[in-house]
Protein backbone atom coordinates (compact mmCIF):
# COMPACT_ATOMS: atom_id res chain seq x y z
CA UNK A 1 0.00 0.00 0.00
CA UNK A 2 2.66 2.46 1.13
CA UNK A 3 4.98 1.34 -1.67
CA UNK A 4 2.24 1.79 -4.24
CA UNK A 5 1.49 5.24 -2.91
CA UNK A 6 5.17 6.15 -3.07
CA UNK A 7 5.36 5.07 -6.72
CA UNK A 8 2.29 7.14 -7.56
CA UNK A 9 3.75 10.18 -5.83
CA UNK A 10 7.05 9.81 -7.67
CA UNK A 11 5.18 9.65 -10.97
CA UNK A 12 3.19 12.76 -10.14
CA UNK A 13 6.32 14.64 -9.10
CA UNK A 14 8.01 13.77 -12.39
CA UNK A 15 4.93 14.90 -14.30
CA UNK A 16 4.72 18.14 -12.30
CA UNK A 17 8.38 18.93 -12.93
CA UNK A 18 8.15 18.12 -16.62
CA UNK A 19 5.01 20.27 -16.87
CA UNK A 20 7.17 23.27 -16.05
CA UNK A 21 4.54 25.18 -14.06
CA UNK A 22 6.65 25.05 -10.91
CA UNK A 23 10.35 25.68 -10.37
CA UNK A 24 10.70 22.73 -8.06
CA UNK A 25 8.98 20.19 -5.84
CA UNK A 26 9.73 20.24 -2.14
CA UNK A 27 9.68 16.76 -0.66
CA UNK A 28 11.88 14.31 1.23
CA UNK A 29 14.74 12.43 -0.36
CA UNK A 30 17.11 9.70 0.64
CA UNK A 31 20.77 10.58 0.48
CA UNK A 32 23.63 8.53 2.00
CA UNK A 33 21.06 6.37 3.76
CA UNK A 34 19.33 9.26 5.48
CA UNK A 35 16.11 11.06 4.73
CA UNK A 36 15.78 14.85 4.70
CA UNK A 37 14.06 17.70 2.86
CA UNK A 38 15.04 18.43 -0.73
CA UNK A 39 13.85 20.70 -3.50
CA UNK A 40 13.58 18.50 -6.57
CA UNK A 41 14.17 20.29 -9.87
CA UNK A 42 13.79 19.10 -13.44
CA UNK A 43 16.26 16.34 -14.26
CA UNK A 44 16.73 15.17 -10.64
CA UNK A 45 16.64 11.46 -9.86
CA UNK A 46 13.05 11.01 -8.67
CA UNK A 47 13.73 7.50 -7.32
CA UNK A 48 15.40 9.08 -4.27
CA UNK A 49 12.09 10.66 -3.22
CA UNK A 50 10.71 9.37 0.06
CA UNK A 51 7.56 10.03 2.12
CA UNK A 52 8.61 8.41 5.36
CA UNK A 53 9.43 9.36 8.15
CA UNK A 54 7.26 12.39 8.72
CA UNK A 55 9.05 15.72 8.42
CA UNK A 56 7.24 19.04 8.47
CA UNK A 57 8.21 20.90 5.32
CA UNK A 58 6.25 24.14 5.81
CA UNK A 59 9.13 26.14 7.26
CA UNK A 60 11.55 24.62 4.72
CA UNK A 61 9.35 26.15 2.02
CA UNK A 62 10.44 29.60 3.27
CA UNK A 63 14.06 28.63 2.56
CA UNK A 64 13.20 27.06 -0.79
CA UNK A 65 11.47 30.26 -1.90
CA UNK A 66 14.29 32.42 -0.54
CA UNK A 67 16.75 30.46 -2.68
CA UNK A 68 15.19 31.94 -5.80
CA UNK A 69 12.34 29.61 -6.72
CA UNK A 70 9.22 31.56 -7.69
CA UNK A 71 6.67 28.79 -7.37
CA UNK A 72 7.08 25.36 -5.85
CA UNK A 73 4.96 22.32 -5.23
CA UNK A 74 5.06 20.73 -1.78
CA UNK A 75 4.30 17.12 -0.93
CA UNK A 76 2.85 17.25 2.54
CA UNK A 77 0.52 15.91 5.17
CA UNK A 78 -2.32 17.46 7.18
CA UNK A 79 0.09 19.19 9.52
CA UNK A 80 2.15 20.57 6.62
CA UNK A 81 -0.98 22.11 5.17
CA UNK A 82 -2.07 23.61 8.49
CA UNK A 83 1.39 25.02 9.12
CA UNK A 84 1.41 26.52 5.62
CA UNK A 85 -1.95 28.17 6.32
CA UNK A 86 -0.56 29.75 9.49
CA UNK A 87 2.53 30.93 7.62
CA UNK A 88 0.39 32.45 4.84
CA UNK A 89 -1.63 34.36 7.43
CA UNK A 90 1.52 35.66 9.03
CA UNK A 91 2.92 36.83 5.68
CA UNK A 92 5.86 34.45 5.81
CA UNK A 93 5.00 32.75 2.52
CA UNK A 94 3.02 34.00 -0.46
CA UNK A 95 -0.03 31.80 -0.83
CA UNK A 96 0.30 31.77 -4.63
CA UNK A 97 3.87 30.50 -4.49
CA UNK A 98 2.88 27.07 -3.17
CA UNK A 99 1.06 24.27 -4.89
CA UNK A 100 0.12 21.83 -2.16
CA UNK A 101 -0.04 18.12 -2.91
CA UNK A 102 -1.69 16.42 0.05
CA UNK A 103 -1.41 12.93 1.40
CA UNK A 104 -3.29 11.41 4.30
CA UNK A 105 -1.42 9.71 7.14
CA UNK A 106 -1.83 6.03 7.96
CA UNK A 107 -3.46 4.91 11.21
CA UNK A 108 -0.03 4.03 12.65
CA UNK A 109 1.32 7.47 11.87
CA UNK A 110 -1.74 9.14 13.39
CA UNK A 111 -1.24 7.09 16.54
CA UNK A 112 2.44 7.92 16.71
CA UNK A 113 1.78 11.65 16.48
CA UNK A 114 -1.39 11.47 18.60
CA UNK A 115 -2.86 13.53 15.81
CA UNK A 116 -6.55 14.37 15.80
CA UNK A 117 -6.62 15.59 12.19
CA UNK A 118 -4.22 13.21 10.35
CA UNK A 119 -5.20 14.37 6.86
CA UNK A 120 -5.15 17.55 4.76
CA UNK A 121 -8.31 19.23 3.42
CA UNK A 122 -7.48 18.05 -0.12
CA UNK A 123 -6.31 14.44 -0.14
CA UNK A 124 -4.56 13.32 -3.32
CA UNK A 125 -2.86 10.25 -1.87
CA UNK A 126 -3.79 7.81 0.88
CA UNK A 127 -6.99 7.31 2.81
CA UNK A 128 -8.46 9.39 5.59
CA UNK A 129 -8.16 7.70 8.98
CA UNK A 130 -9.70 8.60 12.33
CA UNK A 131 -7.93 11.04 14.62
CA UNK A 132 -6.37 10.04 17.92
CA UNK A 133 -6.80 11.63 21.36
CA UNK A 134 -4.12 10.73 23.92
CA UNK A 135 -5.49 9.23 27.16
CA UNK A 136 -3.20 11.50 29.22
CA UNK A 137 -5.40 14.44 28.27
CA UNK A 138 -8.10 13.25 30.63
CA UNK A 139 -5.59 12.57 33.37
CA UNK A 140 -4.23 16.12 33.46
CA UNK A 141 -7.69 17.60 33.18
CA UNK A 142 -8.80 15.72 36.25
CA UNK A 143 -5.83 16.69 38.39
CA UNK A 144 -6.12 19.38 41.04
CA UNK A 145 -4.15 22.59 40.51
CA UNK A 146 -1.38 21.50 42.87
CA UNK A 147 -1.10 18.06 41.28
CA UNK A 148 -0.95 19.61 37.87
CA UNK A 149 1.75 22.01 38.97
CA UNK A 150 3.79 19.11 40.36
CA UNK A 151 3.25 17.13 37.15
CA UNK A 152 4.51 19.88 34.88
CA UNK A 153 7.27 20.93 37.24
CA UNK A 154 8.63 17.38 37.15
CA UNK A 155 8.16 17.10 33.40
CA UNK A 156 9.99 20.36 32.69
CA UNK A 157 12.72 19.57 35.23
CA UNK A 158 14.10 17.23 32.56
CA UNK A 159 14.56 20.08 30.07
CA UNK A 160 18.15 20.48 28.86
CA UNK A 161 17.33 23.74 27.04
CA UNK A 162 18.43 22.39 23.67
CA UNK A 163 15.86 24.58 21.91
CA UNK A 164 14.93 21.51 19.88
CA UNK A 165 11.21 22.24 20.29
CA UNK A 166 11.70 25.76 18.98
CA UNK A 167 13.93 24.74 16.09
CA UNK A 168 11.72 21.88 14.95
CA UNK A 169 8.56 23.98 15.07
CA UNK A 170 7.29 24.92 11.60
CA UNK A 171 5.45 28.00 12.87
CA UNK A 172 8.21 29.42 15.11
CA UNK A 173 9.53 31.95 12.64
CA UNK A 174 10.51 35.05 14.67
CA UNK A 175 13.99 36.26 13.76
CA UNK A 176 14.59 37.35 17.33
CA UNK A 177 13.30 34.86 19.86
CA UNK A 178 12.42 35.96 23.40
CA UNK A 179 13.66 32.60 24.62
CA UNK A 180 17.17 33.66 23.61
CA UNK A 181 16.86 37.07 25.23
CA UNK A 182 18.67 37.17 28.61
CA UNK A 183 15.99 39.57 29.84
CA UNK A 184 13.53 36.66 29.98
CA UNK A 185 15.72 33.56 30.05
CA UNK A 186 18.93 33.49 32.05
CA UNK A 187 21.94 32.30 30.10
CA UNK A 188 23.61 29.07 31.17
CA UNK A 189 20.87 27.92 33.50
CA UNK A 190 19.84 24.29 33.06
CA UNK A 191 17.10 23.32 33.47
CA UNK A 192 15.65 26.73 32.60
CA UNK A 193 13.53 28.41 35.26
CA UNK A 194 10.07 26.96 35.57
CA UNK A 195 7.47 28.23 34.82
CA UNK A 196 9.16 31.09 32.95
CA UNK A 197 10.71 29.38 29.92
CA UNK A 198 7.99 26.89 29.14
CA UNK A 199 5.06 29.19 29.83
CA UNK A 200 6.46 31.75 27.42
CA UNK A 201 6.86 29.18 24.70
CA UNK A 202 3.42 27.74 25.39
CA UNK A 203 1.84 31.19 25.25
CA UNK A 204 3.51 31.90 21.93
CA UNK A 205 2.15 28.64 20.56
CA UNK A 206 -1.40 29.40 21.66
CA UNK A 207 -2.81 30.81 18.44
CA UNK A 208 -0.53 29.00 16.03
CA UNK A 209 0.13 25.40 17.15
CA UNK A 210 -1.00 23.15 14.30
CA UNK A 211 -0.32 19.97 16.26
CA UNK A 212 2.34 18.51 14.03
CA UNK A 213 4.14 16.78 16.92
CA UNK A 214 7.57 17.93 15.66
CA UNK A 215 8.47 19.56 19.01
CA UNK A 216 7.73 16.49 21.07
CA UNK A 217 9.49 14.24 18.61
CA UNK A 218 12.53 16.52 18.66
CA UNK A 219 12.63 16.63 22.46
CA UNK A 220 15.46 14.40 23.71
CA UNK A 221 13.91 14.28 27.19
CA UNK A 222 10.41 13.19 26.11
CA UNK A 223 8.59 16.10 27.68
CA UNK A 224 4.87 15.84 26.77
CA UNK A 225 4.77 19.27 25.13
CA UNK A 226 1.90 18.57 22.77
CA UNK A 227 -0.32 17.70 25.72
CA UNK A 228 -0.11 21.31 26.88
CA UNK A 229 -0.40 22.78 23.38
CA UNK A 230 -3.39 20.59 22.66
CA UNK A 231 -5.20 22.11 25.64
CA UNK A 232 -4.36 25.56 24.29
CA UNK A 233 -5.83 24.64 20.92
CA UNK A 234 -9.05 23.70 22.70
CA UNK A 235 -9.01 27.05 24.52
CA UNK A 236 -8.63 28.87 21.22
CA UNK A 237 -11.65 27.03 19.93
CA UNK A 238 -13.68 27.83 23.04
CA UNK A 239 -12.63 31.44 23.47
CA UNK A 240 -12.41 32.66 19.88
CA UNK A 241 -13.85 29.84 17.76
CA UNK A 242 -10.45 29.59 16.13
CA UNK A 243 -8.50 26.47 15.27
CA UNK A 244 -4.94 27.24 14.15
CA UNK A 245 -4.29 26.03 10.62
CA UNK A 246 -7.86 24.92 10.03
CA UNK A 247 -9.59 28.26 10.21
CA UNK A 248 -9.38 30.99 7.56
CA UNK A 249 -9.87 33.69 10.17
CA UNK A 250 -7.07 35.98 11.20
CA UNK A 251 -5.23 34.91 14.37
CA UNK A 252 -7.46 36.28 17.18
CA UNK A 253 -4.55 37.60 19.23
CA UNK A 254 -3.68 39.98 16.39
CA UNK A 255 -7.16 41.43 15.94
CA UNK A 256 -9.48 43.72 17.95
CA UNK A 257 -12.86 43.10 19.53
CA UNK A 258 -15.97 43.52 17.43
CA UNK A 259 -19.73 43.73 17.83
CA UNK A 260 -21.17 41.71 20.70
CA UNK A 261 -17.73 40.99 22.18
CA UNK A 262 -17.27 44.73 22.65
CA UNK A 263 -20.26 44.72 25.01
CA UNK A 264 -18.99 41.70 26.91
CA UNK A 265 -15.62 43.31 27.51
CA UNK A 266 -17.03 46.57 28.82
Amino acid at each position, binding site marked *: MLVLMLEDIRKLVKKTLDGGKVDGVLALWRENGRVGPHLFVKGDDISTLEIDPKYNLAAVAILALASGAKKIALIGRGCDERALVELFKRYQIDENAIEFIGMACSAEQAKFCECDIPYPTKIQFGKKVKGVVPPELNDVNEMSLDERFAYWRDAFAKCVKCYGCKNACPVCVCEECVLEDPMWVKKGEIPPAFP*MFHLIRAYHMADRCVQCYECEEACPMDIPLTLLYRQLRQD*MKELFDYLPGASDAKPPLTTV*LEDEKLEEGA
Partner: protein
Amino acid sequence: MTFEPNILAFCCNWCSYAAADLAGIGRMDQPTNIKIVRVMCSGRVKPEFVIKALSDGVDGVLILGCHIGDCHYVTGNHRTLKRFQVLERLLEHIGIDPRRIRLDWASAAEAEPFSNMIREFTEQIRELGPNPYAGSYA
Protein backbone atom coordinates in the same frame (compact mmCIF):
# COMPACT_ATOMS: atom_id res chain seq x y z
CA MET B 1 4.99 36.96 61.30
CA THR B 2 1.87 37.52 59.25
CA PHE B 3 1.98 37.22 55.51
CA GLU B 4 1.99 40.50 53.63
CA PRO B 5 1.25 40.00 49.92
CA ASN B 6 3.64 41.48 47.42
CA ILE B 7 1.52 42.65 44.50
CA LEU B 8 2.55 44.13 41.18
CA ALA B 9 0.12 46.38 39.30
CA PHE B 10 0.52 47.50 35.71
CA CYS B 11 -1.45 50.74 35.31
CA CYS B 12 -1.96 52.52 32.02
CA ASN B 13 -0.89 56.13 31.83
CA TRP B 14 -4.24 57.54 30.74
CA CYS B 15 -6.90 55.97 32.93
CA SER B 16 -5.93 53.60 35.71
CA TYR B 17 -2.76 55.43 36.73
CA ALA B 18 -4.77 58.63 36.91
CA ALA B 19 -7.33 56.75 39.03
CA ALA B 20 -4.54 55.68 41.38
CA ASP B 21 -3.36 59.27 41.48
CA LEU B 22 -6.84 60.53 42.28
CA ALA B 23 -7.23 57.94 45.02
CA GLY B 24 -4.03 59.31 46.52
CA ILE B 25 -5.11 62.94 46.23
CA GLY B 26 -8.44 61.97 47.78
CA ARG B 27 -6.50 60.34 50.67
CA MET B 28 -8.43 57.14 50.31
CA ASP B 29 -7.64 54.37 52.71
CA GLN B 30 -6.18 51.35 50.91
CA PRO B 31 -3.58 48.62 51.49
CA THR B 32 0.00 49.44 50.64
CA ASN B 33 0.91 46.05 49.19
CA ILE B 34 0.69 47.26 45.62
CA LYS B 35 3.71 48.30 43.62
CA ILE B 36 2.63 50.19 40.55
CA VAL B 37 4.43 50.06 37.22
CA ARG B 38 3.16 52.73 34.88
CA VAL B 39 2.89 51.71 31.25
CA MET B 40 1.59 53.83 28.40
CA CYS B 41 -1.19 51.35 27.65
CA SER B 42 -2.37 48.09 29.17
CA GLY B 43 -1.68 46.68 25.70
CA ARG B 44 2.01 47.15 26.49
CA VAL B 45 1.80 44.40 29.08
CA LYS B 46 3.13 41.32 27.39
CA PRO B 47 2.14 38.03 29.01
CA GLU B 48 5.88 37.61 29.58
CA PHE B 49 5.71 40.45 32.13
CA VAL B 50 3.12 38.60 34.17
CA ILE B 51 4.83 35.24 33.85
CA LYS B 52 8.16 36.72 34.89
CA ALA B 53 6.60 38.42 37.90
CA LEU B 54 5.07 35.13 39.07
CA SER B 55 8.23 33.21 38.26
CA ASP B 56 10.30 35.70 40.30
CA GLY B 57 8.07 35.36 43.36
CA VAL B 58 5.48 38.14 43.18
CA ASP B 59 2.29 36.98 44.93
CA GLY B 60 -0.23 38.58 42.61
CA VAL B 61 -0.35 40.63 39.42
CA LEU B 62 -2.92 43.26 38.49
CA ILE B 63 -3.32 44.66 35.00
CA LEU B 64 -5.39 47.82 34.91
CA GLY B 65 -6.44 49.70 31.82
CA CYS B 66 -9.07 52.04 30.43
CA HIS B 67 -12.58 50.72 29.95
CA ILE B 68 -13.19 48.99 26.62
CA GLY B 69 -14.04 51.74 24.15
CA ASP B 70 -12.17 54.40 26.15
CA CYS B 71 -8.62 53.33 25.32
CA HIS B 72 -6.39 56.29 24.52
CA TYR B 73 -5.04 54.22 21.64
CA VAL B 74 -8.54 53.06 20.69
CA THR B 75 -7.93 49.29 20.66
CA GLY B 76 -4.94 48.72 22.94
CA ASN B 77 -7.02 47.19 25.70
CA HIS B 78 -8.84 44.90 23.27
CA ARG B 79 -5.59 43.05 22.85
CA THR B 80 -4.94 43.03 26.57
CA LEU B 81 -8.30 41.41 27.17
CA LYS B 82 -7.72 38.65 24.62
CA ARG B 83 -4.21 37.92 25.83
CA PHE B 84 -5.39 37.84 29.39
CA GLN B 85 -8.05 35.24 28.65
CA VAL B 86 -5.46 32.97 27.07
CA LEU B 87 -2.96 33.57 29.86
CA GLU B 88 -5.55 32.69 32.51
CA ARG B 89 -6.24 29.38 30.82
CA LEU B 90 -2.56 28.66 30.36
CA LEU B 91 -1.79 29.26 34.03
CA GLU B 92 -4.58 26.89 34.95
CA HIS B 93 -3.27 24.18 32.63
CA ILE B 94 0.14 24.32 34.19
CA GLY B 95 -1.27 24.34 37.71
CA ILE B 96 -0.98 27.98 38.76
CA ASP B 97 -4.02 29.47 40.44
CA PRO B 98 -5.42 31.99 37.94
CA ARG B 99 -6.87 34.00 40.84
CA ARG B 100 -3.38 35.38 41.31
CA ILE B 101 -3.79 37.52 38.24
CA ARG B 102 -6.56 39.98 37.53
CA LEU B 103 -7.46 42.28 34.69
CA ASP B 104 -9.70 45.23 35.42
CA TRP B 105 -10.60 48.63 34.08
CA ALA B 106 -10.63 52.00 35.86
CA SER B 107 -11.30 55.39 34.33
CA ALA B 108 -9.39 58.46 35.50
CA ALA B 109 -12.38 59.48 37.63
CA GLU B 110 -12.89 56.12 39.35
CA ALA B 111 -10.74 56.62 42.42
CA GLU B 112 -13.12 54.83 44.73
CA PRO B 113 -13.70 51.75 42.57
CA PHE B 114 -9.94 51.67 42.15
CA SER B 115 -9.16 51.56 45.84
CA ASN B 116 -11.96 49.05 46.42
CA MET B 117 -10.43 46.85 43.75
CA ILE B 118 -7.01 47.12 45.37
CA ARG B 119 -8.48 46.21 48.75
CA GLU B 120 -10.39 43.26 47.32
CA PHE B 121 -7.45 41.87 45.39
CA THR B 122 -5.05 42.27 48.32
CA GLU B 123 -7.45 40.32 50.52
CA GLN B 124 -7.79 37.62 47.89
CA ILE B 125 -4.02 37.21 47.63
CA ARG B 126 -3.73 37.23 51.41
CA GLU B 127 -6.11 34.27 51.51
CA LEU B 128 -4.22 32.44 48.75
CA GLY B 129 -0.98 32.82 50.70
CA PRO B 130 2.58 33.27 49.48
CA ASN B 131 3.46 32.43 45.88
CA PRO B 132 4.50 28.74 45.80
CA TYR B 133 5.44 28.80 42.13
CA ALA B 134 8.52 30.97 42.23
CA GLY B 135 11.73 30.24 40.60
CA SER B 136 14.14 27.85 39.15
CA TYR B 137 15.05 24.32 40.14
CA ALA B 138 18.25 25.44 41.82
